[in-house]
């Protein structure tokens, strides 16, 4: 079988960031091709390049079997769609206020004859076409497992989350695609729903459709794909059968991170066989009430985005002076937990208490004043303000100008990277420098508990070292830290204790050293 989609040296950068850096790959007609990689690896950018949302800067993207191929690069998205490339979106993009039927009908646009005049003069002779179209829309709904009578007339936004995902697939199928791109079709789904997604993908493929699947659920990807490519930092680092991918050392490093060079790269589980043979994961009773110096106590926390239950029955605690890490794959619910603690999100049920304050009932600014400060994922420094101005904003809640002034000076001394650049716009700093700035800004709010969300995200290895040195330093000076990381090995190195989060639940917990040896950690990331 020939290639249906052929990417050659495709490149795209945003400013100084190489989002997709010379990726070549080939998707065979009739196959299910998986595309995986850690958060920020460039997967969605690659899909956006193929579907025309973002123009390529170099390289070629060719669609078609052996003889007739057509170049997709730099074409408009609607043209590419009409050429037979359909997609779903990572964040659902249904026409929420239209009925499920109308969603599918809109999807048929490209295959629908121009009928405006017929609609203006609705004569009986013209009625055949619309009826055929309605029948086809019903058939498409049925194909993805929706009931045309029950779900068809309902507004898309009112359907259950899993049904909305399915409806998006039906809408994509309406264009009669040759290639279907599914961008995280199973995100936020429970295991039963995920099984149904897997069945649907296999069934569509059996009917002859070529599928490009992007998902963070490794069980799903490893289970259905014929071939998998792995991206990291915009580059393809591996390409092969599921079996070769899951044992590729470079892939494992990309997902679990690398330990500091001094201790050498080690893969969890690699030594576990000899050290703790067949030992059950040491599951401490999560959230057992701590001693008198317990700082944060989370009990049975449930958080949802609409119909998506992102966090389920999460309980844990942090004692004063600890570094605690929450680790787990992308989409596990780690950031959601942090955002709930800092008051940006409200829990569905359960409680979170910080030094006696009920976090579920306190506004975000009050929570900061109580000493719980979050350094958000992606750093969120204000790019046009100078380093100094960014720092001053970090002290916004404080009135003691003199002390703030002194502390900013102290921070400039302590982090010479910032001191040297104090008058530069923060946007000109490198990613790692911005991360240190974001942490320094958090410190100016005088945190008792500092929440760090993915501090190593998208950073080059030596910058990761610098950031983790800063984290350790802050901790040594007496700040309690809750660290959220995908880079599990680095996080486990510095953490006193850690909790492994998978699909919204706490899977296991233990000391950093214990978990480093535990094969279940690798499973949580790479499936198995």
């Amino acid at each position, binding site marked *: 079988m020939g290639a249906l989609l052929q990417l050659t040296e495709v490149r795209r950068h945003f400013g100084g960031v190489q989002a997709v850096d010379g990726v070549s790959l080939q998707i065979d007609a009739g196959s299910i091709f998986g595309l995986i990689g850690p958060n920020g690896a460039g997967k969605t950018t690659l899909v956006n390049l193929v*579907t*025309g*949302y973002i123009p390529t800067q170099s390289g070629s993207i060719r669609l078609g079997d052996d003889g007739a191929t057509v170049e997709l690069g730099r074409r*408009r*998205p*609607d*043209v590419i*769609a*009409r050429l037979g490339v*359909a*997609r779903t*979106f990572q964040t659902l*993009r*249904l*026409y*929420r*206020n*239209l009925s499920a039927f*109308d969603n599918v*009908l*809109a*999807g048929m*646009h*490209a295959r*629908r*004859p*121009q*009928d*405006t005049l*017929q*609609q*203006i003069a*609705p004569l009986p002779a013209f009625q055949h076409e619309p009826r055929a179209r309605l029948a086809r829309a019903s058939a498409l709904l049925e194909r993805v497992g929706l009931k045309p009578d029950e779900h068809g007339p309902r507004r898309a936004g009112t359907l259950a989350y899993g049904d909305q995902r399915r409806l998006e697939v039906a*809408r*994509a199928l*309406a*264009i009669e695609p040759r290639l279907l791109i599914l961008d995280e079709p199973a995100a936020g789904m429970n295991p039963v729903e995920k099984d149904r997604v897997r069945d649907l993908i296999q069934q569509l493929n059996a009917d002859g459709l070529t599928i490009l699947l992007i998902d963070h659920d490794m069980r799903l990807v490893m289970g259905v794909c014929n071939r998998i490519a792995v991206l990291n930092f915009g580059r393809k680092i591996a390409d092969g059968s599921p079996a070769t991918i899951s044992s590729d050392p470079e892939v494992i490093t990309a997902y679990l991170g690398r330990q500091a060079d001094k201790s050498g790269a080690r893969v969890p589980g690699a030594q576990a066989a000899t050290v703790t043979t067949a030992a059950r994961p040491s599951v401490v009773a999560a959230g057992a009430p701590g001693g008198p110096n317990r700082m944060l106590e989370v009990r049975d926390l449930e958080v949802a985005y609409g119909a998506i239950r992102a966090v389920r029955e999460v309980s844990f605690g942090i004692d004063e002076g600890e570094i605690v890490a929450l680790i787990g794959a992308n989409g596990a619910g780690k950031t959601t937990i942090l955002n709930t603690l800092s008051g940006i999100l409200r829990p569905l049920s359960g409680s979170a208490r910080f030094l006696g304050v009920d976090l579920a009932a306190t506004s975000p600014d009050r929570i900061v004043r109580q000493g719980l400060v979050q350094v958000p994922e992606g750093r969120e420094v204000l790019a046009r303000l100078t380093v100094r101005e960014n720092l001053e904003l970090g002290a916004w809640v404080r009135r003691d100008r003199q002390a703030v002034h002194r502390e900013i000076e102290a921070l400039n001394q302590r982090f010479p990277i910032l001191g040297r650049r104090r008058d530069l716009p923060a946007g000109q700093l490198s990613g790692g420098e911005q991360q240190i700035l974001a942490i320094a800004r958090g410190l100016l709010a005088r945190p008792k508990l500092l929440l760090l969300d993915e501090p190593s995200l998208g950073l080059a290895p030596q910058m990761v070292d610098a950031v983790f040195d800063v984290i350790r330093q802050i901790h040594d000076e007496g700040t309690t830290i809750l660290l959220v990381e995908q880079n599990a090995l680095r996080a486990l190195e510095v953490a006193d204790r850690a909790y492994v989060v998978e699909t919204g639940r706490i899977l296991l917990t233990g000391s950093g050293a214990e978990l480093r040896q535990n094969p279940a950690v690798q499973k949580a990331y790479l499936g198995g």
Partner: protein
Amino acid sequence: MDFFIQLFTDPIGFYNSHELLIAQIGVNAILAISLFVTFYSGQLTLANAGFMAVGAYTTVIMSLYLPLPLPIDILAGSLLAAAVGFLVGLPVLRLRGIFLAIATIGFVEALRLGVILNLPITGEGQGLKNPTADPLGGIVPIVISLPLIAYLVWRLTHSKLGHAWAAIREDELAASSNGINVALYKMIAFVIGALLAGYAGALETHINFFVDPTEYSVTRAIQILTFAVAGGTTNVVGPIVGAFFLTSLPEIIRQASAYRDVVNGVILILVIIFRPQGIVAGGGLAIHRPRWWPESWRFRGRPASVN
């Protein structure tokens, strides 16, 4: 109240005694529909007062200087408005939401202050006398046009065109993934809106003896938006009802006529708070209970909240 009693008990007498009001309702309803078309494709535009001016001035100037039958003047006015709509649409349709609204306000004011007030043929700030106007005869084309336009637009919203507009309104990115040429369909909606607004402007000149440049300012543009929003924009009946209700309001409450704009503003605010989907929309007669409205003040016997 007399207003409604007469409307239902003595429609012919009502028609005879309110001809000018009916004509004005008809013009406003067509304007509201012209806004509805662009709104249906997800574009908030305030340019329609400007297109209306193009239609009005073109029609009157042609009837003053060219010996052509009136319908041709009206047609020419509408088509020129559509052509101006196309030219204006080229740059501004890249904008969305409030930015598009602001850009179209810019167009309306630039047209009025920059072009109309400076072209001698438009009478500049003095306006234009329209000796050929025929207030009573002018009603007829309006009364015929309104149901026809409403029907056409209603059918359009059910055609391939209409489904594409709805998809673009809901989510442009997703629409392009369905093979919909977003820029093209937005332009079509914008040009149809301009055409209808120009037509309404042309018809309006026929019931007034005078074309007044101050009529085509931002105030008018916002009034048109008010008709559509108050009436509801889920289907084509909403803008018509909104135009009827708000245009006849000074007649219904005679005391209110001096405070017309105030009353319109209050009604718009009330509609947005208690009936955000507009007067004509799904959900029967349900009243929306805002979150800050105390539970105990519930409207007795009615559902407290839609959604």
